[in-house]
């Protein structure tokens, strides 16, 4: 039942109404609202119960193993959440004077330094509010770089075909054309094709490494050389940084600019869709173009003093990306996480996420499943192709995904990357124990047996969720995105 269907005219959570204040309104009549908005009219208990019960219809890390490839659904430490929720942080106004902000600024400064260290880059800006905004900032910096050199001919961004959709979409938002580079059968970029593609029109290339194929791009140095020699720059999409954290640094691989997804690698909760945070890091060539604000540190009378660096300090900056300082609370969580891990902990992230993925891949292979890149090491994630199962049993990757829900496992990422047919992209993360990994593999094997013996069961899955499979076509055709209040009753 929708919250709108529970109300009664005049009902309300009256403890939430402020004490009445008397006085004369100074608002001109013609600017006043004419019709009240139909918001819920419900009691506080109804609100609490409704949303508590809604939450119970979700899968989440806190309740289920959630091996959603490319999303790094690892444990989100409650301690980091607690730290970011300290009253002093929650109450601080984004425009509070610097003198009254030294605690907050110190955290941000330290985080900048940590991110520089783990990426091997020269400068960091914490502003971008998600991965995609980080990509935008990064590509905009590439443009600013070429523009500053009056190299206006560069109008193309290269993107391997396995790339995430945000890469090409970002390039376009930055005014570039997108050229896709094919990926070879072993998951690496087709270097020859790349060599043919680069030229004076090349602004840069956007790459994920490990790629979304779940393998490490072995020719990264040649790629860097190729693109750099053509005058382009290399953008690193950090969505998969978890695989290599503490093991190899994008800066050392030759990347000029990158973003990190703190809501992946730095364990900040994804909140059912967001918020995230996508800081950008750059090599020396792009430092002048970083988005503002950034936190600077000075010594005054032997004491560290932190201050905002804005457009005055960074006149070549690619600009501002938000009204204030991006997703500050997420940055605090990421900083807390970094403090908890420390130097030793960073290495382990890459090591154990990789160990878990390789173990699962090995078990699934033993169980008869088909790895998309069987000759390669898995990174923190790997791909199964369900084409054999589709051929043999008529059961596809989506059917397996839905049936997994009935077994109490969130589905892996389905049908991404696009170049592997019937693919399941599986990312266990380092925070899951061997028991969960084995449980998942067992469930997959059982579903395979079901697919063989009773394929309709699998094709009809899920059976145990709040709803059965939903009619997406109808959702798009008979668009219902806004409750009509015309009295129809939903029984969700």
């Amino acid at each position, binding site marked *: 039942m929708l919250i709108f269907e529970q109300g009664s005219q005049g009902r309300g959570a*009256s403890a939430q*109404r402020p*004490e009445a204040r008397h*006085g004369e309104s100074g*608002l*001109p009549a013609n600017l006043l*609202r004419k019709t009240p*908005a139909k*918001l*819920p009219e*419900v009691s506080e208990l109804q609100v609490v119960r409704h949303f508590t019960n809604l939450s119970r219809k*979700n899968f989440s890390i806190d309740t289920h193993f959630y091996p959603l490839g490319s999303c790094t659904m690892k444990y989100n430490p409650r301690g980091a959440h607690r*730290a970011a929720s*300290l009253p*002093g942080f929650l*109450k*601080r*106004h984004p425009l*509070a*004077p610097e003198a009254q902000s030294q605690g907050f600024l110190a955290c941000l400064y330290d985080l900048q330094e940590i991110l520089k*260290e783990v990426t091997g880059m020269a400068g960091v800006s914490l502003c971008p509010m998600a991965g*995609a905004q980080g990509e935008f900032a990064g590509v905009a910096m590439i443009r600013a770089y070429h523009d500053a050199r009056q190299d206006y001919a560069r109008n193309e961004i290269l993107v391997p075909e396995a790339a995430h*959709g945000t890469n*090409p*979409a970002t390039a*376009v938002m930055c005014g570039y054309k997108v050229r896709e580079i094919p990926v070879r059968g072993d998951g690496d970029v087709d270097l020859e094709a790349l060599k043919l593609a680069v030229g004076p029109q090349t602004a840069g290339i956007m790459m994920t490494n490990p790629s979304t194929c779940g393998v*490490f791009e072995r020719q990264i140095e040649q790629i860097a050389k190729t693109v750099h020699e053509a005058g382009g720059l290399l953008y690193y999409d950090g969505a998969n940084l978890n695989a290599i954290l503490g*093991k*190899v640094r994008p800066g050392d691989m030759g990347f000029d600019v990158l973003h990190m*997804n703190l809501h992946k690698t730095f364990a900040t909760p*994804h*909140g059912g*869709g*967001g918020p995230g945070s996508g800081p950008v890091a750059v090599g020396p060539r792009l430092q002048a173009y970083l988005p503002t604000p950034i936190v600077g540190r000075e010594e005054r009378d032997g004491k560290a003093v932190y201050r905002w660096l804005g457009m005055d300090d960074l006149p070549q900056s*690619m*600009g501002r990306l938000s*009204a*204030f300082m991006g997703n*500050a*609370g*997420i940055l*605090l969580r990421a900083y807390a996480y970094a*403090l*908890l891990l*420390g*130097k030793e902990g960073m290495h382990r992230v*890459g090591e154990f996420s*990789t160990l878990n993925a*390789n*173990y699962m891949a090995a078990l699934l292979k033993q169980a008869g499943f088909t790895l998309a890149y069987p000759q390669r*090491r898995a990174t923190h994630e790997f791909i199964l192709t369900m084409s054999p199962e589709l051929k043999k049993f008529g059961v596809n990757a989506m059917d397996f995904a*839905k049936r997994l*829900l009935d077994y109490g496992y969130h589905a892996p990422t389905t049908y991404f990357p696009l170049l592997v047919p019937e693919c399941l992209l599986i990312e266990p993360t380092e925070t899951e124990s061997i028991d969960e990994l084995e449980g998942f593999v067992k469930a997959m094997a059982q579903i395979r047996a079901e697919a063989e013996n009773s394929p309709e069961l699998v094709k009809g899955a899920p059976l145990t969720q709040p709803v*059965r499979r939903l009619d997406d076509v109808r*959702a*798009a055709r008979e*668009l*219902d995105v*806004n409750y009509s209040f015309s009295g129809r009753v939903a*029984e969700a």
Partner: protein
Amino acid sequence: MPFIPHTEHDIARMLQTIGVGSVNELFDEIPVHLRSRDLDGIQPGLSEMAMLRLMSERAAQDDGYACYIGAGAYEHHVPAAVWDIATRGEFMTAYTPYQAEASQGTLQLVYEFQTMMCQLTGLDVSNASMYDGASALSEAVLMAIRGNRKSKSKKVLVAGSLHPNYLQAVQSIVVHQQITLEVLPLQGDVLDMAALEQQAGQDYAALVVPQPNFFGRLEDVHTLTDWAHAQGMLVIACVNPMALALLSAPGEWGQNGADIATGEGQPFGLPLASGGPYFGFLTCKEALVRQMPGRIIGRTVDLEGKPGFTLTLQAREQHIRRSKATSNICTNQGLAVTAATIYLSLLGFSGLHQVAQSSHLGAQALRQRLSQLEGLRVDLDQPVFHEFVVRLPKSAQAVVAAMAAQGILPGLALGEFLPGRDNELLVCVTETKTEQDLERYVAVMQSVLTEGQ
């Protein structure tokens, strides 16, 4: 090993199954010379206890001020239930609801949110959120340019009374698509209608109207909307959603209503928290729905005919359309929307009205009293929502510093944003400030002003 559950025994078993001798061997596809050395710039790890101790000390440093700064982020009371529920693991640690059947909680909630935002703004369609108010406005501008069938222009008119940070953000975000923002001059902190007339007849895709504007003042939205529509422009309303409890909904502006409404959702249950996570909202008329960036949740039925919720119109989005998407946005501000939806359910329209009214009357009362202090200048004739400009007899920054020493952040020193306005302070009052608070503000202001004499 914090957060890593592997025992020695587990590791041995796993390596054996994989068929390698060590974890490091799993990295053998990475050229050896690229592998990291120690991360010397990072300190050893802390226990949760030590981390929280450090963070508590840092947080305490910035704590303890009564805040009268507004300027796009507003201190409203956040009901305890809001975050108690929003931080339940099932909401907080879920991903984007790609597997609809396992995400009905989030999906239904966002459908309810969309409905609430449509109701508040008086428009037909809402998306599931943008990053914040400024980035949402940027997307609104892009949307208007794509969606205005009457105009091929890549130019947009923007009221000069827009928040300066919003202007900067929009600029950086749209500039690479050869879009030009033309900033309209002001007359006494609101749009100069005469100057506007000079733009008549030119081809612009849209007009951006803030309400209330950066100075807390009210624009004549009806006239502006009708004028822009007459010129073939779309109208983008950039509004404080809390103000909509009192002020005309964008859908009610002028004859036909604004086409797109956007703004910062923070006033709805989100703490100030140094600027985020907040969320930008974005609603529009039905005709523009296919230009909408970001996620939209639709109601549909399952294979047994039972109602359910799912992501819809995905053919606009980057994961389907890639370079042809309406935006590159992927992750949005889901949890902030969760909180806002709970907030709006608790407050209802009449609760919201009371909050807005109390804020408005508080601002009225404070500016009234400040106008009586010697040396201060306040324009009492002009209507404001809950924020207003005070002209001080000396540098606003100095007054801020002096009042901060007494535990009050009295407002935003405008000089930091607008050159030449060094003596002006932008002051905000919300329902969280009591009569005694306002009295104390006036007393401290007075003492600070006389001090310098």
